[in-house]
């Protein structure tokens, strides 16, 4: 079986002239936990938006589950996205949100209710399920945000900085759940600013800045290629520099 995501010479320039991606090559194999790491404005969100089929046009070639984007139907049922923002309806409860997005995933009847129940249970949300999202804590909202993407049991889970703005406990919980999902066979593409976190979770990493891939490969290989650096954060700083970004 071919790679889950295969990207060749991907370029994306926004209408205002901002070059977000300047020739990206990446390959995500099935069962990987692939970390896309980069400073603010590196092009991470643009990259995963294209992978998820919600941003066009672009130049280059992107294949997801063997399907070339722009030609034929995008394999939506196989991909789950966890956006960086809490993409939920604040006045609906967690359950209502899940039911709605589950229906939009094509689930219905018993399959839907079972899926909602299973997902809420998996992320420890059963008790909060009947509370409106707007009154939930940041940590619970993050978990609900993740749970929506899991409803259709996707084969590829794309997470855009899923642990931003939450406490350590919730972060650890979310990372454990991601690891558990990966162990169950789900391919995970994950962007983060937290190198320590990425080092724990990812098997493969790509460091990008200004729309260019600086390094890409297995975590162990990346660390061994920069032996002078003690950890992934040092590698990251060495590659991307210490200067502040826009």
């Amino acid at each position, binding site marked *: 079986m071919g790679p889950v995501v295969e990207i060749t010479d991907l370029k994306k320039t926004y209408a205002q002239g901002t070059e977000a991606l300047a020739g990206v090559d990446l390959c995500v194999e099935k069962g990987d936990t692939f970390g896309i790491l980069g400073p603010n404005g590196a092009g991470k969100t643009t990259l995963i*938006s294209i992978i*998820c*089929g*919600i*941003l*066009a*046009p672009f130049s280059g070639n992107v294949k997801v589950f063997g399907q070339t*984007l*722009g030609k034929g139907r*995008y394999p*939506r*049922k196989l*991909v*789950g*996205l966890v*956006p*960086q*923002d*809490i*993409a*939920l*309806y*604040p006045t609906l409860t967690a359950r209502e949100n899940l039911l709605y*997005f589950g*229906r*939009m*995933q*094509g689930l219905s009847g018993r399959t839907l209710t079972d899926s909602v129940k299973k997902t809420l249970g998996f992320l420890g949300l059963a008790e909060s399920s009947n509370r409106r999202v707007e009154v939930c804590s940041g940590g619970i909202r993050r978990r609900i945000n993740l749970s*929506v993407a899991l409803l*259709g049991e996707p084969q590829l889970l794309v997470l855009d900085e899923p642990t931003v703005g939450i406490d350590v406990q919730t972060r650890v919980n979310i990372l454990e759940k991601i690891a558990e999902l990966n162990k169950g066979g789900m391919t995970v593409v994950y962007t983060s600013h937290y190198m320590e976190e990425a080092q724990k979770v990812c098997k493969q990493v790509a460091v990008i800045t200004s729309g260019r891939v600086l390094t890409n490969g297995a975590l162990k290989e990346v660390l061994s290629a920069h032996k002078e650096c003690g950890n992934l954060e040092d590698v990251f700083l060495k590659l991307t520099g210490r200067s502040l970004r826009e």
Partner: protein
Amino acid sequence: MKEFFATLHKEFLIFFRDRAGLGIVFLMPMVLVLVVSLVQESTWVAIRAQNMEVLVVDDDGESLGKAVVRGLADSGLCRVVTKISGRPITVEDARTTIMSGRYRFAVIVPAGSTRRVREEMERATIPLFSGEKAAKRKVGGRDEAPRVTLMLAPDLTSLFQEALIANIRLLLRGVEMVVLQEEIVTRVAGFSSWGTGATPEQDEEEMGGNLVLPKRGLVGLGLEYPRKESIILPSSVQQNVPAWSLFGMFFILIPMAGSIITERVQGTLIRLYTTPAPMKAVFGGKIAMYTAVCCVQFCLMLGIGLFVLPLLGLPTLVITGGAAAIPLVVFSAALAAVGFGLLMGCVFSSLMKAAMFGAVCIVIFAALGGIMVPVFVMPKMLKIISNISPLAWAQNAFTEIFARGGGLSDVWVEICALLFFSVASLVVAWIVEHGKGRNGFRAL
């Protein structure tokens, strides 16, 4: 205090760096003021500039008829039409064309009016010269009095009707004075000499004391509303309830646009784009929901006209036309408003911009659509422009149903126009959304 000024500075920078926002804040109100001023002014300019057309049926053919035609033409009130297709207008022609909405009012001078005016004048002026006391020479009863009829279209606003009636009354008084003057001159010419030795003041007192004219004038003014049998006389309720309900309905575009923008800002729309759900389901659901809200809104307004306004001493709203056509007009108008709202939601990135632009657009559409001032009194150019207003189409349809007793066959063109506007808005919205690359490879 430092925080206050820092915030003030920040807001100043944000505000003046947002070109689109600046345009909305400054240009749109200017357009609004311009359009509303033009429309409002046009009510009076139209009257002065002979913009309106009045049918005059001169069955009299003598001085009164001629004086009415001349008086109307000279007054600058309107443009006088005495012939249709090259032949003089009959009373029946006037009735038919007003019922069809082609003309809004007509003045009918019945045959023999001048003769009857002369008779009345004679009776009124005899005491001046005979010395008989006026009290004994009461001017003839109203039944015998000459009567000019003013035919009014049922969709004329009550305010406009009152203005028109007052103007016609004034005109008739002027005509009476001319005829009276002629009569006096004729009679005075018959005397060889005044030679009474009385002072001018005494003469005046004597003459004035003996001249008795009815307070409401010699020529009576009758009103007629040519209409199908089912139609009641027009009232402000009959005109205002549908018109302003429509105005209110179109404000649905703000929550509709807000819904799209909020979803985009929240990220839920992006999330929906990643699901296999067809976008026609996502947007169709929204459209259906807001269209339903609009229809409920109209029902409530209708309920107010039917049940609440009579409690306040106003006439009850009466559905005179084909009731079956009303839901179709309401539905198509709601769909047009919602479609436009969706377009606003796709075009604008912030709710504030969409709300401001949308609200101003509604007011402009309403002003052009005859909600505030009837379209028929607008200058030619504005009349043409008013044809692009969806509120004008909906208002025309409601006028046809509520004021003229029309049915589906009378309003299908307006319904089609509203539906077309709605579909066009949705197509443009989709193109905008697609053009911004927000929906990736999704297709409806």
